[in-house]
């Protein structure tokens, strides 16, 4: 055993920090600091900046050959930690960690160039079309159909005609493409699902905004009514989409605890508790209040070291645990507890709604208050999205404990 970070990792951390301090645009940092969802115009600038000169920092998990930096899992984790410590936005996870790896692994070289190339330069936006109104936790129950028909263009290729509804599509109102799970074999269940790119501006596509309880417009519902997409937009083989989607969910296991975000949020909580006073005494000097922060810090330490175990586990599986599920459950619940305390520590000012487009100072409260209530509300979804915590516990019980 060796419980130390090596010197190269520490040097790496300083390199990332120095670059961010020199290059992170101030206006983007100002928005990211308050945890509001960034509009795509800002995210596009950020992706372009991180990938400039072939650095590939917007795709930290990609190999050098794929255009990434070829970092180790530990370096990727350190990168994520420094991003949030420096008030930088997170990367565009949907492409970097979801559809990007699928296209890289299962798409053709033509598809890699056509889909991932423009995104890498901040020119196109992808959003996910997986969940449906009647297929949430039971994702394999999707009913959106894709039927292969002769195409209309002169090149002789086939088209797919898509019909159905998708829901909880983050950033769908900015999208150029939706990467969708669709039924291509109506008789089979999981085996009949394919992964296909659907052009967001095609005739028959309707995007309906869903305002969430944080009052932000990030989510959308999609309606596909005889939408045509070229068969050249099918990723990999027909009816293999479920296998592709599952493979990448497993790649995400170490990240699912959001340990860096939890660490940052705990720092924010301490900063609020130093600033706010009760009867002349800073909250952080109130033993009862401080003890509750300490409990959260202990929870966080557990999560971080569980994450480090996951990061350093050998690829062959020397750590035989349902890591993703364990980290998802604990990390999501901790985010909720810390954001609850953000609001409590704000005291009277914790009740006031600050929206993204409110002019600074127009709502009473300290300058760090905007975004905290929004984020508290939004984080109620952490135990629901990405496989609800109920599903994660079932995975632990059934797939690992053999119950």
């Amino acid at each position, binding site marked *: 055993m060796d419980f130390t970070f090596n010197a190269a990792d520490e040097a790496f951390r300083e390199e990332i920090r120095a670059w961010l301090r020199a290059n992170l645009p101030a206006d983007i940092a100002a928005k990211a600091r308050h945890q509001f969802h960034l509009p795509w115009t800002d995210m596009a600038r950020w992706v372009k900046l991180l990938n400039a000169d072939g650095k590939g920092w917007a795709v930290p998990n990609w190999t050098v050959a794929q255009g990434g930096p070829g970092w180790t899992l530990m370096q990727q984790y350190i990168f994520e930690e420094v991003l949030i410590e420096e008030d930088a936005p997170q990367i565009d996870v949907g492409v970097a960690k979801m559809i990007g790896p699928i296209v890289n692994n299962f798409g053709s070289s033509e598809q890699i160039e056509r889909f991932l190339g423009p995104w890498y330069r901040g020119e196109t936006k992808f959003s996910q079309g997986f*969940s449906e109104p*009647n297929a*949430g*936790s*039971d994702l394999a*129950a999707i009913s959106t159909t894709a039927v292969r028909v002769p195409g209309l263009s002169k090149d002789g290729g086939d088209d797919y005609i898509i019909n159905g509804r998708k*829901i*909880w599509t983050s950033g769908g109102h900015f999208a150029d493409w939706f990467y969708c799970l669709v039924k291509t074999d109506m008789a089979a269940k999981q085996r009949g699902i394919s992964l296909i790119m659907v052009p967001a501006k095609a005739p028959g596509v309707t995007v309906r905004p*869903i*305002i*969430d*309880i944080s*009052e932000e417009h990030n*989510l959308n519902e999609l309606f596909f009514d005889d939408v045509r997409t070229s068969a050249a937009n099918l990723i990999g083989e027909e009816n293999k989409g479920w296998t592709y989607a599952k493979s990448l969910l497993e790649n995400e296991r170490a990240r699912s605890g959001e340990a860096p975000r939890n660490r940052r949020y705990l720092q924010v909580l301490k900063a609020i508790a130093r600033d*706010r*006073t*009760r*009867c*002349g005494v800073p*909250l952080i000097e*109130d033993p*009862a*209040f401080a003890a*509750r922060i300490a409990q959260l810090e202990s929870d966080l330490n557990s999560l971080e070291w569980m994450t480090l175990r996951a990061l350093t586990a050998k690829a062959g599986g020397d750590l035989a645990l349902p890591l993703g599920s364990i980290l998802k459950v604990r990390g999501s619940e901790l985010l*909720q507890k810390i954001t*609850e305390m953000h*609001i*409590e520590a704000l*005291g*009277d*000012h*914790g*009740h*006031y*709604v600050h929206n993204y487009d409110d002019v600074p100072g127009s*709502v*009473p409260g300290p300058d760090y208050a905007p975004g905290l*209530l929004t984020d508290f*509300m939004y984080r*109620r*979804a952490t*135990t*629901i*999205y990405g496989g*609800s*915590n*109920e599903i994660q*516990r*079932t995975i632990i019980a059934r797939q690992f404990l053999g119950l």
Partner: protein
Amino acid sequence: MEFGLSEEQQLLQDSIARFVEREYSFDKRQTLVTAGGAFSETNWATFAEMGWLMLGLPEDAGGLGGTPVDTAIVMEQFGKALVVEPYLPVAVLAARVLIDAGADNRLIAAIGTGEARPVVAHGEVGAFGTLGWVETRAARSGNGWRLSGAKSLVLAAPFATHFIVSARTSGEPRDAAGISLFLVAPDAAGLTRQDARLADSSRASELTLDSCEAQLIGSEGAGLAIIETAFAHAAIALCAEAVGAMDKALWTTRDYLQTRQQFGVAIGTFQSLQHRMADMLIELEMARSQVFRALAHLDAEPAVRDQAISSMKVQIGRSIKFTGYQAVQLHGGIGMTEEYLIGHHFKRLHMIDNALGTVGTHLGRMANQYSAQNRRAA
């Protein structure tokens, strides 16, 4: 003992249930809190006509002389529908302060008729829920007084006809003695109001007082006991509202579990979710029990009363963090949307947990009494 409603109380409950069913559908409420500015003069007039605003007022001020139990019945029904008009700030909190301070009966009577909407401006950011901490100062000026300081989270301030402002006429911010109560007109010179929308879409303001003209009500320096009694009444009303809001959230969630299908069955057939709902019911009924208990102790000596209020608020907070929060969780994604009611119950419940003292504040108040008792015994 008897926990059931009297015939009159049953009629009261039914009349409010009919009102909210008619006027407070989810869609109507959504329109009210957005386009309607979170206040309906029509609804307020109905509250007056039905006698709900004069329910807790003494008969010599034109009131019905009702009890805090009656007020709790109103608030529970309002909680089920997330009524946003400031019944608690005006008809409970401000009315109680004015009655106990011996204010002009004409003003108290005007609350009952709906003509006056006084609200209390007591809390300050630095008090963090401690009722005895007042930094705002009052200075004599001719025959009257002038106030300087700042008040936070003044509920319903944008709709107020009068402000009841607490300020120090002597002593230091933490002293129990020296807090006095004043009436301030909304258009008084030196008064600045910064409005805010709250998480449940109700409205409140921060007030800044800069040598603002004010009129003393009650005895100089003796305001804290009045404030403490009024906030005890308000805390019970707030917790009764929470019980109503949780009750509605619980049964809405139960219905959802019976209809939502995943993996080929209603998700309510999953034992883990059944147990979750069972715990939600247990938490709700523990909360309701503590509201009864606090009502039973409302007229006890202040130390006993305040232990009961704090005990209730601690239980309510715990129940909200389970029942209120799980209502969203069990709805999944739909629970996260503005267009569905459960998220709005969650928001109101979260606010109630953080209003009139958090769980931490009230545990601290209970604990401080233990140490005070121990010191006296030693």
